[in-house]
């Protein structure tokens, strides 16, 4: 009855995006920028018009939208910053996404992409320190992608020793509510067994997986009246157990009954002068028959 839960997963469009680490911004994004042009753009809440590839904060703005389309899209960027243990936060990469404005006024992000900047030498050193000290590697993103940082930054941390595999593997699950980020589940894509071993990555670059998640709708309370009405035609077969023959249903009563009757008959034949011997047989028959509906009704009531 709750078969259509999957529709909500359509909304949480999980875009796994894998890029090799590089210091530059993706060409592809820039190409898309040009494709839409800058016609009739709504002024962004934050009027810093520096564009994406710069390393300075703030990064984000909805840069364009097609004014004719009610469900219009615009491009948006927001930064990822990282910190090593207790250090300050430094820019580490950029998330790029499509901001979809729905006709009813809601805004959601789709098509999230992520480009990470390569670690500098000092950052590598710091990361090594973290690995040796089994300390935390922290990241943060703004809580509002339209007006960063929003009310506060969303911070997430992981023990640095969880990340190194062949390269540094990381996995983001970004929980969104409209244009707000609630939380980031950040960590290694796989397990991180407890006695964490010190292991240096072969290559100092990040393998990033990102998933965007929106809230799921709760399954509706079962409305029974509808279900029974709708279910009668299609699911009638499944609801009603297949009708069995009389014999199949009552053989367990019929066999003893038959035995009793046979017994009575033989006794009656043996002593035809004593009519009373038939009596107990018929008596048993009555009680057995009476037991059937009683048992059934009890079962029905309990159900």
């Amino acid at each position: 009855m709750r078969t259509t839960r999957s529709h909500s997963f359509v909304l949480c469009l999980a875009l796994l995006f894998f890029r090799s680490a590089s210091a530059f911004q993706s060409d592809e994004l820039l190409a898309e920028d040009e494709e839409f042009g800058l016609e009739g753009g709504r002024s962004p809440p934050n009027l810093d018009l520096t564009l994406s590839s710069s390393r300075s904060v703030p990064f984000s703005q909805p840069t364009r939208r097609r004014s004719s389309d009610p469900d219009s899209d615009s491009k948006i960027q927001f930064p990822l910053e990282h910190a090593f243990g207790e250090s300050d936060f430094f820019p580490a990469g950029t998330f790029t996404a499509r901001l979809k404005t729905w006709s009813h006024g809601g805004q959601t992000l789709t098509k999230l992409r992520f480009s990470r900047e390569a670690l500098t030498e000092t950052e590598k050193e710091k990361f090594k320190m973290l690995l040796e000290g089994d300390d935390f590697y922290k990241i943060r993103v703004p809580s509002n992608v339209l007006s960063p940082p929003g009310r506060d930054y969303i911070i997430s941390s992981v023990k640095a020793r969880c990340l190194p595999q062949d390269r540094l593997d990381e996995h983001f699950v970004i929980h969104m509510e409209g244009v707000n980020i609630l939380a980031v589940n950040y960590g290694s894509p796989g397990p991180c067994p407890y006695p964490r071993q010190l292991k240096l990555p072969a290559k100092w670059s990040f393998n990033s997986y990102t998933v965007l998640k929106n809230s799921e709708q709760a399954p509706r309370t079962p409305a029974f009246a509808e279900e029974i009405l709708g279910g009668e035609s299609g699911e009638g077969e499944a609801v009603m157990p297949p009708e069995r023959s009389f014999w199949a249903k009552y053989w367990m009563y019929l066999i003893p009954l038959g035995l009793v009757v046979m017994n009575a008959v033989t006794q009656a034949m043996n002593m035809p002068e004593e009519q009373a011997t038939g009596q107990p047989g018929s008596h048993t028959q009555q009680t057995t028959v009476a037991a059937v509906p009683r048992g059934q009704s009890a079962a029905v009531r309990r159900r």
Partner: protein
Amino acid sequence: MAIPGFLLVLLFLSCSLPALSLYEDQVGLMDWHQKYIGKVKQAVFQTQKAGRKRVVVSTEENVIASLDLRRGEIFWRHVLGATDAIDEIDIALGKYVITLSSEGSTLRAWNLPDGQMVWESFLSGSRPSKSLLFIPTNLKVDKDNVIFVYGNGCLHAVSSIDGEVLWKEFIAKGVEVQELIHQLGSHIIYAVGFDGLSQFVALQINAKNGELLKHESAAFPGGFAGKISSVSSDSFVVSDATHSVLVLVSVKDGGISFQQTRILDLVPDSPGTAVVLPTKLTGIFALKINDLVTFVKVIDEGKLEVVEKIDNGAAVSGAVSFSEGQEAFAFVQNGESKIHLTVKHGLDWSNNLLKESIEMDRQRGVVHKVFINNYLRTDRTYGFRALIVMEDHSLLLVQQGEIVWSREDGLASVIDVTTSELPIEKHGVSVAKVEQNLFEWLKGHMLKLKGTLLLANLDELAEIQRIRLQSSEKSKMTRDHNGFRKLLIVLTRAGKLFALHTGDGRVVWSLLLDSFRKTGQCNSPVGLKLYQWQIPHHHALDENPSVLVLGRCGRSLDANGVLSVVDTYTGKEISSVGAAHSIVQVIPLPFTDSTEQRLHLLIDADQHAHLIPRTHEALSIVQREFGNIYWYSVEADNGIIRGHVLKDNCDLEVSDGYCFNTRGLWSIVFPSESEKIIATMTKKSNEVVHTQAKAMSEHDVIYKYVSKNLLFVANVAPKAIDEIGLLTPEESWLVVYLIDTVTGRILHRVTHHGSQGPVHAVFSENWVVYHYFNLKAHRYEMSVIEIYDQSRADNKDVWKLVLGKHNLTSPISSYSRPEVVTKSQTYFFTHSVKTIAVTSTAKGITSKQLLIGTISDQVLTLDKRFLDPRRTVNPTQAEKEEGIIPLTDSLPIMPQSYVTHTLKVEGLKGIVTSPAKLESTTLIFAYGVDLFFTRMAPSKTYDSLTEDFSYALLLLTIVALLVAIVATWFLSERKELQDKWR
């Protein structure tokens, strides 16, 4: 093949709804119920011309009750809602109790003998104001006694017969009426009060029609503060804004005149602010400066004269008139271990009507309030009795220098509850005792046997019931095998700690914590929470268990904390510390030191963590586990949840090795425009989960996600925090989260559209059940979320287990990416709910039942199997055998499943469950204004015989069988012999 199936189904159906109800004669066997009323605010005596002497009281728990003046029992009682606070009570017509509540907007009359409500009036007004109730004794309007009520800026005259509002007079805006006065014989009501800060206003109102006859006002440049206290019908005393000058106001025909007297002239060298106590005495008023009470007499022309000064924190009663126009009043002084009650004549100060000293238990603290009442002695003189409210909220009646009765009404305001074991039984019981016990035992069992065989007569039946109820077993002060006997440690709002015996609910010891009393540094201490400090077992068995009491000096979060450790066997305070820092959060760590003392981290407002106990051993334990201590904080107003870890030692001015800096690890920021946190819930830290695996039908197994670091958060739309019914379903939603508190990951998140709070939730094992309101369906709903671990799901192969290739024993790390699946389902539920709890048993094997505190103050049990996401409309045969109940759209409420049976736990606030040693049994304690305790077996007592099991009958049966065997053997022998002889 069908028969076994059929039988199995029958078997399942017969046990699917466990009968929790009890028989009539089982009431009181394992449960007890205690009724309380709370701290008395106001008392009115009704002793004249009444067969049963009684006192009517209103309390801070919004209870109005009529108490038996002879024994202190409750004749009747009504608990008004938490939003319906009682302002004043009085008695009208000699037969109605009048209550004014909800800030002067609800007036009710209750029949004095039986407490039935006679009438109810809602008084509307224009603006919030002070509320006053005034019932003049000899004022009749059209043969009707009139009740005057000032509330919400209006003066109402209400008929005392049927509650009809006779007239209503709006008092001018800005005027705050403080006193209503009526002069004998006239038809004019005088109202005096302030207009603004410095205008004194006197109004004259016609009592017949509410017409404003006169409006006089006069300005006093010094301004006023505090309350107006009347000295006579036309003169009043009030202090000025600086609390240094007393102003005597006299309202005469010629207008209002002021006369000032400096307080310093009356009471030299008195630091602190002076408060005029309302005594309603003619010509005398009382002035309270700190602990010193000064009685001042008003002599002619406004001269003031000090008549007596009494110290030691006295409480002063109101005036009571006896015989013709004579007035008396009382005051109480606190002595070392006594209190001194003095009753004085209102006019003749020189001699006392009564002076008594009463022995007082130190654990009751000081006297807070006193009310007096007069009676005629046998020798025709006047005697006085006093009703005294103590610091621990207990209520005492004092007469003839003795405490006639006392009530522990502090137990009506329980803040927190925990349980403690009793001492182990010492060996070496005397033989005589055993013999006597044996005789008693046999006698009891013979009686019981008679009862079972329906041979007992009425007297014997009563005797059987008495024996069952007063079994000495259940109220012993030692541990029992089944773990039914325990101590309930209860912290009350007065800062008093009680130990209640679970057997019969008696108070084993009580302790008024010194550190929770008002002192110079800590002027309004509040108790907050109880923690288990030391639960000795194994190597520390000779230590007594103890609890940690946490409190705070004042309401604000950054007030200094107070800690106290109390021994639960003796009820003595072992140690107490007024912490030098605030305590925002207490984190009990899962570590104990060698004496089984639990380590706690106290987080202060500056985000420092302080370790207690302050020992080197504790410090070394923390150093060892330094990296594995995580906690979280919820900023509900801000909508932010943060995770924290320890960082390093504090660098304060005074070096302190037990103080640590902390650092933030993660944060979750809920968008303030769409979500607001209204409820959070975690698992009980001491919960036991028997097995992680859950066997399913078709020989399948799933693994519960049993991480202890899970937090359930419920958010609603910010507009939806108000009452139900103000929003449309489209504007309202409920979002629930399951959050891992170590990493800050959101493991599950789901939105219920068209739903709103209040949300009540309970979290146990791998499931959370929450209750909320569905605006679309106009009904309450309950949802369940179960969370399962997928990372262990492939451990199904037997060969893997045999070869050790499974990951069942590997340690779990929160930093691994969680592979969880959740299942959920929603049902309608008829009741609104006050609180939800869940049963807990010693090993966690017994199935769980939810304990729902309903709006009608009862405790309802609901089998967890009704809240199982795997329920379907038509479960398969295999699922039915497993115990899955066919899905219904609403949860059933069976009248037999109320654990409180016919009783009510008035003002229900919380339900606490505690496991007994016997796996099948759980102890339940529900508290509110009343206390209720019972024990219950969620899956029936499968591991013990019931208490009323008749051993004698068993014995008798065995004996009878033996006799029968012997007899038949003898008979058969004889028959055989006869056959042989034939």
